């Protein structure tokens, strides 16, 4: 019950936050940190629990974003339904990529490279076909109303993000304890042993990448709704893939809270730098890249792993 209590407490704190601040800057900061955390959580499902490192999660982000906006613009679907369509398609794309890569036994670095190539193919296709608007991108017309999922103030989007993050937290917590999650972690730790014990690695990894893709697709849909614009570089470019993996790795792979923690730390760092040096081009990514290198070098279990190491030091058993 304790983990659920932490999630409840977290929900209460972030849900009450807009009541104690009028500052749009603070609200935006927390919202974007949660948003990056959600990307990290999506990546964490596949990499942290399943041990499959993807370099192309932008593929799912982009599909989520494009389906969400195209469903509204071209097919006249209400955004409240479109977002579920976007999530479903992203899950399907995950399943297709997974079916191809896992069927042929791609692992480790090869899997990372093939996911990157898939994202690149999607980016070039999005540049070349009509329905995505090509390089010009697609714009979501401003029609503020709750029915259109366009809120008068930032607070509406903020609560939307909170709901998504809480769902993701519950999913991750479930994954940690459930049979499916146990299979997934067994495959991560030793695929051959898991297979010998009767686990079907292909099926389990396939479900994991679909779930991960669905979560990433949700962030894509959210992005489009908030910024009301998408183009192939934003959708399928490396930025989204990098943000997702850095948040998860910095926070701690295979933990429930790691990706959120990582996202908050990274956002705080980039905020502090922005205040110190002003808005320099690329400075955010320089921080992300440096932190990634330092964490992999010195703290391969992430910040959350630091707590575990300290506990280990004092001889308590890990929970």
């Amino acid at each position, binding site marked *: 019950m304790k983990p659920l209590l932490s999630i409840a407490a977290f929900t209460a704190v972030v849900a009450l936050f807009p009541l104690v601040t009028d500052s749009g800057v603070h609200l935006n900061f927390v919202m974007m940190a949660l948003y990056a955390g959600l990307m990290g959580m999506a990546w964490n499902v596949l990499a942290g629990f399943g041990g499959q490192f993807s370099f192309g999660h932008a593929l799912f982000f982009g599909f989520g974003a494009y389906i969400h906006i195209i469903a509204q613009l071209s097919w006249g679907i209400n955004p409240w339904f479109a977002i579920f369509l976007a999530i479903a398609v992203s899950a399907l794309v995950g399943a297709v990529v997974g079916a191809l890569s896992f069927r042929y036994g791609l692992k480790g670095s090869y899997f990372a490279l093939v996911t990157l190539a898939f994202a690149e193919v999607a980016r070039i296709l999005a540049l070349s076909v009509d329905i995505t608007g090509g390089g010009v991108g697609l714009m979501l017309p401003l029609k503020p109303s709750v029915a259109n999922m366009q809120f008068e103030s930032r607070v509406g989007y903020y609560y939307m993000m909170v709901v998504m993050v809480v769902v993701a937290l519950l999913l991750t917590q479930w994954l940690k304890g459930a049979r499916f999650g146990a299979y997934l972690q067994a495959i991560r730790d030793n695929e051959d042993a898991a297979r010998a014990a009767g686990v079907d690695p292909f099926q389990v990894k396939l479900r994991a990448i679909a779930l991960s893709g669905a979560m990433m697709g949700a962030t894509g849909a959210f992005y489009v709704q908030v910024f009301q614009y998408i183009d192939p570089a934003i959708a399928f470019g490396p930025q989204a893939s*990098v943000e997702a993996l850095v948040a998860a790795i910095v926070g701690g792979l295979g933990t429930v809270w790691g990706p959120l923690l990582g996202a908050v730390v990274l956002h705080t760092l980039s905020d502090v730098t922005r205040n110190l040096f002003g808005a320099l081009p690329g400075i955010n990514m320089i921080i992300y*890249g440096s932190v*990634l290198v330092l964490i992999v070098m010195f703290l391969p279990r992430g910040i959350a792993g630091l707590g575990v190491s300290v506990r280990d030091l004092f001889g308590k058993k890990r929970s």
Partner: protein
Amino acid sequence: MFDLSILIPSVLNGLTTGAIYALIALGLTLIYGVLHIINFAHGASLMLALYAVYILHTKFGITPYWALPILIPGMFLLGYGLQKIVINRSSHGRDENILLVTLGISIVMENLALLVFRSDTQTIETDLTLAVVEIGPAFISTPKVIAFGGALLSSLILYLLISKTDLGRAIRAVSKEKAGARLMGIDVDHVYAMTFGIGLAALGAAACFLLPAYYVNPQVGSGFVLIAFTIVVLGGMGSFGGALVGGLLIGVVESLGGLYLGESLGQIGIFLIFILVLLFRPNGFFGAKA
């Protein structure tokens, strides 16, 4: 559509680009073959080398081909240092960690370039910029012809270095049997760093031949990195001849794809080859065992 007067120039252009691709891929495949790691920062390192050539030319008036004696040792030192100081300490027993660290390095390099040079695309003009060489029905620009020859020559030197020298013997020994090489008194960490350095030095040479016929911007490396991976996978990870043939092949595929499908869609051919080869022939077509 299959008019030879269009086809031949396109194939020749593809071969010149392909030779540069091959040289870039050789560095990557050498690092992979010996250290068994994938250097994701390969493209970003090339971008840095291109900027170095650009600055030497615009600020110091050094022609790109005369920059070779500066770029080759410079890039070698960068590679030696990166491997010895950062990459060597990052694996913790997992290949993916190397990929992550080199990804981090490439992000830092690309965005530092963005910070310093902004996102503008830069080209240089040399005495040879407008010169062309006539080959049959084709006019190929002289810088491209020089790039072709230079890349092949560099590849040959690289091959001789690996196959004929003591250093090459040590590198091959380490790549085959690390523990055994260590017992023979080879300093494995030093050989690793040397190999990484040589892999990046190849990029230094490639940059000098490439810039007069090409351009540089902070993102230029990310285009090359996937192409280099494709070539390396196509040729078989760690295979020298494979990288050479694969590079020329990909250059021609890209050129013909651009001719018949248009510039942006033509690129898709490369990535599709990459995905298909990874899925069906992850050991490549030239036999080297992954």
